[in-house]
């Protein structure tokens, strides 16, 4: 276990450094000069050079990248003008555009994605596992086929179309909900839930399909396994066979995939955030990319990559915890 975690940690660090390098390279190659943007309208050549120097974008790429890495591990001092402030590790640097420490910007956005991920995960698990079971109980019958068709349709719907339909349906036609406007949980839990309901639904509806299939397939597969025959041979009631034992067989996969999916949503849900105007990481990422805000872009990529890696590790741990046969 410790060895597994250490190995994972090591692997993750390597992946993340590679990721950061890739991002740096990519955005370095991007047209558009962050200094020019920061400098604004009517910026003279001299001034531009000064701004470049202030941002540090006048140095060679490798040097910039190295600073980025050392800053991440050791922290870095930033001149605000009259004074220098210390950005302590893990420091992702200072945004070119909004003059804020990137770490802080990300931490401000993360709660949105956490809210989004956890809420939608609860919903999609409920919907997915529920319908999966519903379909698995009578495989091949009409309700199985209908569930299958519905789930396939929902699962194939691009999330922005789903979001659009939900917005128009709930806010424009039926007017049962106001237009979502994110409210932090700490501020007003009821408002928080109400405003996130549609985003949760949008993600959950398009994601649940996968879980319906996983659950259905998992339950059916387990029901076909020999040990289920043993249970039947010892007079276990069918309900118990399905609900306790067959579901148990489908559980590790469902939970593992859920962990990975949650990681993905945590790392930013661009469309959902854009459609519902949620101030999350995904939206920040798109904005930062369009303003060549390299520190922010790198910070998000790293955080997103880290979240995905962590989610994968958690998925493996959960898999091991749920399946006694798997050792790590």
């Amino acid at each position, binding site marked *: 276990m410790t060895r597994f975690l250490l190995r994972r940690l090591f*692997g993750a660090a*390597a*992946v993340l450094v*590679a*990721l950061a390098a*890739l*991002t740096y390279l*990519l*955005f370095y*190659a*991007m*047209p*558009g000069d962050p200094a020019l943007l920061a400098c604004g309208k009517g910026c003279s050549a001299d001034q531009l050079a000064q701004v470049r120097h202030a941002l540090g974008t006048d140095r060679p790429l490798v040097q910039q990248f190295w600073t980025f890495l050392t800053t991440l591990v050791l922290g870095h001092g930033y001149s605000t003008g009259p004074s220098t402030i210390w950005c302590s590790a893990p420091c992702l640097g200072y945004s070119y555009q909004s003059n804020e420490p990137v770490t802080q910007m990300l931490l401000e956005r993360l709660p949105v994605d956490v809210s989004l991920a956890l809420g939608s995960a609860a919903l999609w698990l409920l919907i997915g596992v529920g319908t999966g079971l519903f379909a698995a109980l009578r495989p091949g019958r009409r309700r199985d086929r209908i569930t299958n068709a519905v789930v*396939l*349709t929902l*699962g*194939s*719907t*691009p*999330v*922005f*179309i789903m979001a*659009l339909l939900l917005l*128009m349906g709930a806010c*424009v036609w039926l007017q049962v909900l106001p237009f979502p406007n994110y409210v932090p949980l700490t501020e007003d839990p009821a408002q928080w839930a109400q405003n996130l309901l549609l985003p949760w639904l*949008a*993600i959950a509806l*398009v*994601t649940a399909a*996968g879980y319906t299939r*996983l659950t259905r397939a998992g339950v059916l597969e387990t029901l076909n396994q020999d040990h289920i025959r043993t249970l039947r041979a010892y007079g276990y009631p069918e309900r118990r066979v399905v609900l306790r034992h067959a579901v148990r067989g489908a559980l*590790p*996969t469902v939970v593992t*995939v859920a962990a*990975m*999916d949650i990681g*993905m*949503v945590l*790392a*930013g*849900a*661009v*469309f*959902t955030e*854009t459609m519902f105007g949620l101030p999350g990481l995904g939206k920040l*990422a*798109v904005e930062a*990319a*369009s303003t060549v805000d390299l520190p922010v*872009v790198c910070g*998000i*990529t790293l955080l*997103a*990559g880290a979240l*995905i890696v962590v989610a*994968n590790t958690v*998925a*493996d741990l959960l*898999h091991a915890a749920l399946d006694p046969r*798997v050792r790590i």
Partner: protein
Amino acid sequence: MTLTETHAPAESAASPAGRERPAGGGPAGVLARLWALRGGRTALVTVAVLVLVALTAPWLAGLEGQDPNTFHDTLLNSATGGSPDGAFGGVSAQHWLGVEPTTGRDLFARLVYGARVSLGVAVGATIGQLLLGLLVGLTAGLGSRWADALLSRVTDLALALPTFFFSIALLAVVPQSFPRPLLLGLILSGLGWAPIARIVRAETRVLREREYVQAAVLTGAGNWRIARREILPGLVAPVATYTAIVLPQNIVAEAGLSFLGLGVRPPTSSWGQMLSTATTWFQVDPAYVLVPALTLLVCVLAFAGLGEALRVAFDPKASVPVRQRRARREAARPVPSTKDQAR
């Protein structure tokens, strides 16, 4: 006992091993089985129709008498935001699906021309993903321990990439003079090959342990020949099935990027591009939104249905003997469904 007396009682074709029927009989057999499935037939026909529409777009638009880029100012009401005059977004005998608000371009023509981009990009991207995925997966699966370790790490890295975000960045990086549809295809394939590589690698590892592959090794066949003659045919089923799954994902990805305004350049139309300008018009001109949205949905659904049907047609229950624990873990760990769709 003489050798010709081989038909001993127990050697009937119904021996237990005979139950496991591999997907033999070649592509014709699969097609026949696909056709036999109700869903498969519907999906296949729909897909065929859509492909046909894309191929004959100029002819179809000509049939209507319109082209996708001509403005029709006279059909718009300039005082009300440039919305089309007439019911259902200006549906008429000249404009079968009405016209686009603020420009008056013909929606039907844009839709059928858009099919070329949407499908073309998706198909191109899928082919790219397949080629890359097969190359990496096969090399990792059949190559030396080092090649495998290296390629597996690269695959891990590719899987950890926030793909969607990277495609946004890449679309911004590459000069605008580079043909956009081609770029979209390249980016989608460059970022999306990893799941295929992983599947191919895992399957290759499993197949490599199959005794018929071992027998082929013993004949002195080289790696390349083994890959081509023994492994690849065994990959047809999982890869074909996965292809049908990623293709609609690529359609959605292209639509998504175009939806965010990063896809094709004007005046080219694609379904995502049409949707992106249409969303705000929902209340005033619902037809404008529904036309591309439903087309996209039907298309994705048809491909998804095809994938589902292919899975059944190829019989997924083919036994998967796994020897090493690593292989088992990888096989047991499904590819996250998130790579399906950027949310």
